[in-house]
C-alpha cells in the first residue's frame, strides 16, 4: 500500500507531511530520556524484523498480494511513541534506498501504514486488554488491533486518493478496504504468532515499560 510519487496532489501530500512530522516530533520528545538499556536491542531487532516482513508479499485474492505493516506489533512491545519512530524510520529507509513509496508521499505512507497502527492500533489493543484479562487479552487485543489498523490504513489511503482527485471515493474506498480486509487477517495472524512465540520463550520482553 506504499503510495508512489504522483498519486497525491500537492495539497494532500504536503498536509500529510506536516501532520506526520508533528506527530513524530511529539514521539521523539516523549521518547527522549525514557528509553532504557533494555529497549535498545529490542528496537533494533524489531525494526529489522518489520523491515524484512514488509518484503514478504503473500498472495491474497485474485492476483493481488499484501505484506504485513507491523505498527501494532512494535507498539505492543515498546509502546506507541517509540514504535512510531521505528515505523517512521522504516518508511523513510524504504523510500530513500529502495524506491518503495514516494518521497512526496512519505508523510502519507508513515501515517497510513505506521502511525495508524502504532497510535490508534495501540489504543484499540489497550482497550481490549483491559476488558480481557491476562495473556489472552494481549493476544486477542493485538490481533483485533492489527486487523483494524490495516483496514483503517487502506481507508485512509482511499480518502487521500479521492482528495487528490486520483480516484473517486465511491470506487477507491470499497476497492481498497475490500482487499485489505483480507490482508488484515494476515497482519493479525503474524502479529499473534510473534507475540505468542515471545510469550512462550521470553515473556519478559513484552513487559518492558511502554513509551
Amino acid at each position, binding site marked *: *500500500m*506504499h*503510495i*508512489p*510519487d*504522483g*498519486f497525491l496532489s500537492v495539497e494532500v501530500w504536503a498536509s500529510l507531511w506536516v501532520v506526520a512530522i508533528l506527530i513524530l516530533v511529539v514521539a*521523539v520528545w516523549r521518547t*527522549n*530520556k525514557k*528509553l*532504557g*538499556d*533494555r529497549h*535498545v*536491542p529490542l*528496537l*533494533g*531487532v*524489531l*525494526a*529489522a*524484523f518489520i*523491515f*524484512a*516482513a514488509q*518484503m*514478504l*508479499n*503473500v*498472495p491474497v485474492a*485474485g*492476483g*493481488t*498480494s499484501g*505484506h504485513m505493516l507491523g505498527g501494532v506489533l512494535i507498539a505492543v512491545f515498546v509502546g506507541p511513541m517509540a514504535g512510531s*519512530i521505528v515505523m517512521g524510520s*522504516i518508511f*523513510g529507509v524504504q*523510500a*530513500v*534506498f*529502495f*524506491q*518503495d513509496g*514516494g*518521497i*512526496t508521499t512519505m508523510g502519507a505512507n508513515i501515517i497510513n501504514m505506521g502511525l495508524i497502527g502504532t497510535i490508534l492500533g495501540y489504543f484499540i489493543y489497550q482497550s481490549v486488554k483491559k476488558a480481557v484479562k491476562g495473556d489472552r487479552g494481549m493476544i486477542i487485543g493485538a490481533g483485533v488491533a492489527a486487523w483494524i489498523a490495516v483496514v483503517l490504513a487502506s481507508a485512509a*489511503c482511499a480518502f487521500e486518493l479521492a482528495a487528490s482527485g*486520483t*480516484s473517486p471515493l465511491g*470506487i*477507491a474506498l470499497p*476497492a*481498497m478496504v475490500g*482487499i485489505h480486509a483480507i*490482508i488484515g487477517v494476515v497482519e493479525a495472524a503474524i502479529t499473534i504468532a510473534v507475540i505468542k512465540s515471545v510469550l512462550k*520463550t*521470553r515473556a519478559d*520482553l513484552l513487559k518492558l515499560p511502554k513509551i
Partner: protein
Amino acid sequence: MELKGKWLVTGLIIAISMACVLSLFASSDPDGLERVAEDQGFAEKAEGQEAIHSPIPDYAVPGIENENLATSLAGLIGVLIMLGVTFGWAKVLKEKR
C-alpha cells in the same frame, strides 16, 4: 544490555533469513493499492514521477545478473541499514546515566 545474547542473535537470524531467503519466494503480484490503481486506470499517474532515484530500486541491487542474489543482497543491506538507523536514534534518545 540484559537482552543481549541468545534472544538478540535469534531475532536477527530470523530477520535476516526473512530478508535474504524468504524474500525470494515473495509474491510479485501487485499489492492492494497497485491492483486498485491498475483496475481503475490511474497507475500511470506515478510513471516518471519519482522524486529521487533510489540506489536499490525494487529491492534488487542493480548490476547483479542473478536476480535471487540481487534480492538477497538488497534484503541484507536493508536489515543492516535498519539496525544502524535504529541504534543511531536510540543512542541519542537513551536515558543518560
